[in-house]
């Protein structure tokens, strides 16, 4: 294949190597090349947040990052939150607060919320709503999502 690049990166603490074309987004590489489909595609133009990953400590829409840019970086995807011991507090709160209906936006919301709580353990409703404004949910009206993030922030203290 012409112009294929070898990328070495770290995903959820594990070294991962893959080959990608320059035109492939990080989202496509995660889903179709590496085979990690937990990160979802909703729009492929950076407007819905379903593909949110934590990329060198910042939340990004992985559809707006090229696969080749992952070289030497560290990222966290939804697959990296739960441990063999159990769910991340955000995941547990999403379940307990019924903060998902169809669930397609849920990985993006949970990863985005982790990006917030990792930096700011003390959050209020206004801060959560502002932070999550880049993630679209069409099922819940956001009420229970905001409550779940606030609930998780309490549990994580």
């Amino acid at each position: 294949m012409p112009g294929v690049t070898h990328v070495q990166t770290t995903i959820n603490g594990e070294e991962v190597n893959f080959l990608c074309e320059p035109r492939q987004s990080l989202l496509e590489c995660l889903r179709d090349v590496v085979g990690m489909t937990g990160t979802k595609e909703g729009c492929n133009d950076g407007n819905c947040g379903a593909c949110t990953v934590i990329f060198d400590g910042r939340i990004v829409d992985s559809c707006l990052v090229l696969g080749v840019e992952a070289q030497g970086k560290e990222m966290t995807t939804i697959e990296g939150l739960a441990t063999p011991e159990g769910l991340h507090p955000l995941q547990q709160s999403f379940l307990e607060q019924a903060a998902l209906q169809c669930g397609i936006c849920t990985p993006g919301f949970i990863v985005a919320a982790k990006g917030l709580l990792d930096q700011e353990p003390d959050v209020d409703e206004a801060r959560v709503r502002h932070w999550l404004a880049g993630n679209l949910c069409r099922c819940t009206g956001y009420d229970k999502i905001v409550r779940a993030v606030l609930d998780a922030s309490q549990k994580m203290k």
Partner: protein
Amino acid sequence: MVSNPAEANIVLSEVEFEVVGKRPIRPDGVDKVTGRAQYGADINLSGLIHGKVLRSPHAHARIKSIDTSKAEAYPGVRAVVTAKNLPFASLSKEDLGGDYMRLKFASDHVLASDKVLFKGHPVAAVAANNPHVAEEAIKLINVDYEVLPPVLDVLEAMKDDAPLLHEELRTTSLGETSEKPSNIAAHLRYEKGDAEVGFAAADVVVEKEFRTAAVHQGYIEPHNGTAFWNTDGQLSIWTSTQGAFAVRGSVADVLRQPVSKVKVTPMEIGGGFGGKITAYLDAIAALLSQKSGAPVKVVMSRVDVFEASGPAPATWMKVKIGATKDGKFTAVKAELSFEAGAYPGSPVMQGMMCSFGCYDVPNGLIDGYDVVVNKPKTAAYRAPGSPQAAFGVESVVDDIAHQLGIDPIEIRLLNAAKEGTRRIEGPVANRIGLVECLEAARDHDHYKKPLGPGQRGRGVACGYWMNRSFSSSLSMTVNYDGIVTLIMGSVDIGGTRASIAQQTAETLGIAYENVKPTVVDTDSIGYTFITGGSRTSFATGWAAIEAAEEVKKLMVARAARIWDTSEDDVEYADGVIQHRSDPELRMTFKDLARQLANTGGAITGSANVEPAGEGNGYAVHLVDVEVDPETGKTDILRFTAVQDAGKAVHPSYVEGQMQGGAVQGIGWALNEEYFFDDKGQMMNSSFLDYRMPTSLDLPMIDTVIVEVANPGHPYGVRGVGEAAIVPPMAAIANAINGAAGVRLNSLPMTPGNVLDALSGDGQ
């Protein structure tokens, strides 16, 4: 009002249950919060290749020729298909007889044969080894179009001299078919009493015209379809759909296959709201698979979703209500013209049925028109047709209340539909809860609290959806460890695995955790209608109850055999099987399950149901807004959604339906709109420009669940998915009227439209 002390937002509950009414964790929850759940686009199959669809750049054009030779020769391309590959192309009018038009519309909607009827209409498709190659190859297909003038507005399309979309289409008007071709597919009418007599008796009459823009369901997951057509003739499809059997039916139809040759596996679905019933891609993927011999996956882009899957129709409506000076309605009248999009089939009939569904009126006349235009074929969207009609009706009701100086909730209470009310289209209401919802809204802290300073207003509106039933199949097996595995055909969009498992556990008298539900493919369960119409917790719930009752009988029979006694001596109560007279003979469900292995094997109960007795759904919404006079922007300050759930099986997911419906309605009211240019090109086909509400735009959405038990269900369940999207548009319009003194008769009420109204230019 009576409140459940543990559930402050649930009123009027008459019966408490062990499992129904509790808030357990959903069975599919862990997979969905960890990214392990497999949605349609997540599927990978051995040898999978990828399809892309070439779509029309024109809203209306005749296809003169299609040259696919360059695409076919492109390296990496495995198959190219056009409408010529659909069976319809080789069937004659004579072959099809009376079925000709229906099949032509269905086939042409999959792949256009002679004309394209909307921007985005599929004309060809390519499968290739990777999606980028397929994308490049579709650009090499040369389509020669004769561009025709598009018809883009419902009233324009109804004119005698409008360009015709379908030369064969005739108007069916009150049972008669017209001679002349027309864009009006149907004219329908409902009538009760004599509206003119009623208006003559009125002290006040208000008549207004309304318009609403096309809006999209806005599910976050794009449409997808994966197919493998095996050499033995078996076609397998994996797709995100609200109804695996609906996809099976429409794919079998356009491919002229027996339904049993098609197996549809419903993957997890990322939202539907009525928009994931139509099979847009599945037949295309099947044709590409047939031609290439490989499994083929096709996924829509977000642009495709906006331009080529079904929005809810744009509408024009005229609403007239007459009332006595005391506020009692004497007559109502409505004319609803709905854009069907490219092919007939808008939800205008449902709009007509719902328009005055909240009121007990002596005289009414409702006319509806289903009109084709050069826009994507419309699809169902949550209470299809009702939100548009309610925007008109509930705005006029508010105007009448204002003119007469009556409180807007009181005028609604005075005229509210109740048990025994005959609706204009005929049916008589069973026990319904609109009055209770209105009373709960009136008594709510929200309604009593002063609005505070600024340009603020408070609006109220009601909404109605009939709720549906239709058929459901389900079976359940008692395993030797006492776990009941439950298999069903109802796709789970928002928690129905939980709500059906709860009804199963309740009926069997066992713990919720001991029921393990699975949604299966069309070969593994009997026909089950779509998850839609607010039917699943009701109708599939009924199936679960019937199947569980069968399990109970079989468990009693097994115990009788073990105890060597008559079945009449054994009873089943609260998950315990016991001898009626011998207290020594007693087994829990689990005890008996452990003995099944050596006494005749597993026990399975199953049910195929189409229950009568669906209970109508009503919602009442309260909203406070603030209108910025400088910018025209409307902020939602407070929102309370009240709804009769009958019985909330899982109150958290009932609240979720109410909140989600309310917020979709807020988007419909204030922001959302398909913008077309004069050539029929959609100008805002991205989430950036088609502006759905974000978390930042909203307050918390308060809920009050009213539980007026549906007599047609053992636990009193009504559907809850749909009524919640009906009131917000009118409630917000009424609130804006209160805040800024302007009545907006057209949706959406964007800042620009509000400013125009404030300056007297708009409307």
